[in-house]
């Protein structure tokens, strides 16, 4: 009985399932570098298509708002950036968890690469929001819950960046950042539910109400296109940053040296 079980076990070890194989291959730096290199041109094309159609739809074909006039068009940058600011944090925390649990180097690099991109999106969301706020609310900045939460998110990103650069050993720094990212994830639900918690100046969610969205369909489609464009742009910059980080960390390895020789030759 016992030997039988161990036999079954060893067979399972020899023939791992599709998912396990994919998971382990993902973790291999060389494989990642090659695949991401092939993927990048396609992502650029997809990004360009989404961006052009989204911007055209948002700036030209979408009707002006009956209340806000043309100033509402800033949402085509503001809203996708705000969405991404939270989405990037999720990606960072999930890859942080993977890095902590399986000690996967690639997940560490993905996590570390997320932080500056997320900080950038958060910054864009804050700046565009304040540009929109001046004509609409009559003030550059209002101490409203969602704005404040977004600002706190920016500080969370800056904390991650600061901690990573403060610790010399990059593998240790990655572990520290992973713990911090998982702790910070507590903040994301607070951002999300703050709209319901404090009833303040910022308008409530208009898109996620599936039953009866309070945004016109001609305005919604460009917004979704722009959201797609931002997401693809995130994927592109994440891949670029991760490849960079990968080359830096794997510098003494054979395959990186070969790569450099190929470039030179």
């Amino acid at each position, binding site marked *: 009985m016992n030997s039988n079980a161990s036999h079954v076990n060893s067979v399972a070890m020899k023939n791992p399932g599709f998912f396990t194989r994919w998971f382990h291959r993902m973790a291999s730096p060389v494989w990642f570098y090659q695949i991401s290199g092939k993927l990048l041109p396609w992502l650029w094309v997809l990004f360009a298509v989404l961006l052009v159609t989204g911007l055209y739809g948002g700036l030209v074909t979408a009707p002006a708002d009956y209340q806000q006039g043309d100033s509402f068009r800033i949402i085509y940058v503001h809203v996708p950036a705000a969405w991404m600011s939270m989405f990037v944090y999720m990606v960072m925390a999930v890859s942080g968890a993977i890095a*902590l649990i399986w000690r996967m180097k690639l997940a560490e690099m993905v996590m570390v690469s997320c932080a500056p991109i997320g900080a950038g999106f958060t910054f864009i969301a804050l700046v565009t929001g304040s540009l929109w706020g001046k004509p609409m609310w009559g003030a550059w900045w209002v101490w409203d819950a969602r704005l*404040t939460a977004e600002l*706190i998110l920016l*500080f*969370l990103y*800056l*904390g991650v960046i*600061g*901690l990573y650069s*403060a*610790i010399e*050993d990059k593998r*240790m720094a990655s*572990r*520290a950042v992973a*713990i*911090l990212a*998982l*702790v*910070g994830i*507590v*903040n994301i639900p*607070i951002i999300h539910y703050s709209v319901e918690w404090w009833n303040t100046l910022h308008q409530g969610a208009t898109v996620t109400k599936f039953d009866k969205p309070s945004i016109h369909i001609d305005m919604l489609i460009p917004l979704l296109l722009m959201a797609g464009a931002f997401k693809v742009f995130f994927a592109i910059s994440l891949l670029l940053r991760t490849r960079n980080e990968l080359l830096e960390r794997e510098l003494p390895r054979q395959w990186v040296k070969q790569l450099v020789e190929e470039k030179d030759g």
Partner: protein
Amino acid sequence: MHIAKAFLSVLKRDVTVAFRHRNEIFNPLLFFSLVTLLFPLGIGPSPKLLQTIAPGILWVAALLAALLAADNLFRSDYEDGTLEQLVLSPQPLSLMVTAKVLAHWLVSAVPLLLLTPLLAVSFGLDAPTIGVALLTLLLGTPVLSFVGAIGVALTVSLKRSGMLLALLVLPLYVPVLIFGSNAIDTAASGLPVNGQLYLLAAMLVLAVTLAPLAIAAALKMSVSQ
């Protein structure tokens, strides 16, 4: 049984050490009262204005005092190697750090609680409001200690970590600040504050149950450097 004994001995040791270095107890206290003193001087002595901003001042001062006190939570233990022994000990590290944080809260935050009524009276708050202020601090300051301990555990091996610690920890303190000062504010206008107190209690439960795991993981990382 062993675990309970180890927990109590860590708690007792830390409290004893703190009592032998009295300034660790008095410094946060002095800092707390100094910061609250600065506000009337900066804003003006109008009693009505002070009454309105008193909840915020009390909580911001408590927050900064907690941050200042948190810095020496693991510092000396890291430097003399006690922390390494704690990490190597067979008892679960998350429980041992819970004892340390609890001891730290007892010596750094409880004196603050005792001083609060005095400061609150000077800002012209009435007795029921002071009661609520004490309750929010009682529920909120342990959260500050636990969350602060995560930041300290992450940065204890770094040379100059003061600013970094503030950057890591202060954003995480925000929910406590919001509900704590909001509860006092609401109580001052005579409304029920059950909701805010429940939320603070929920945060406390969350902090006590989850933070020790993060602290332990961070300490292991810091010690192995």
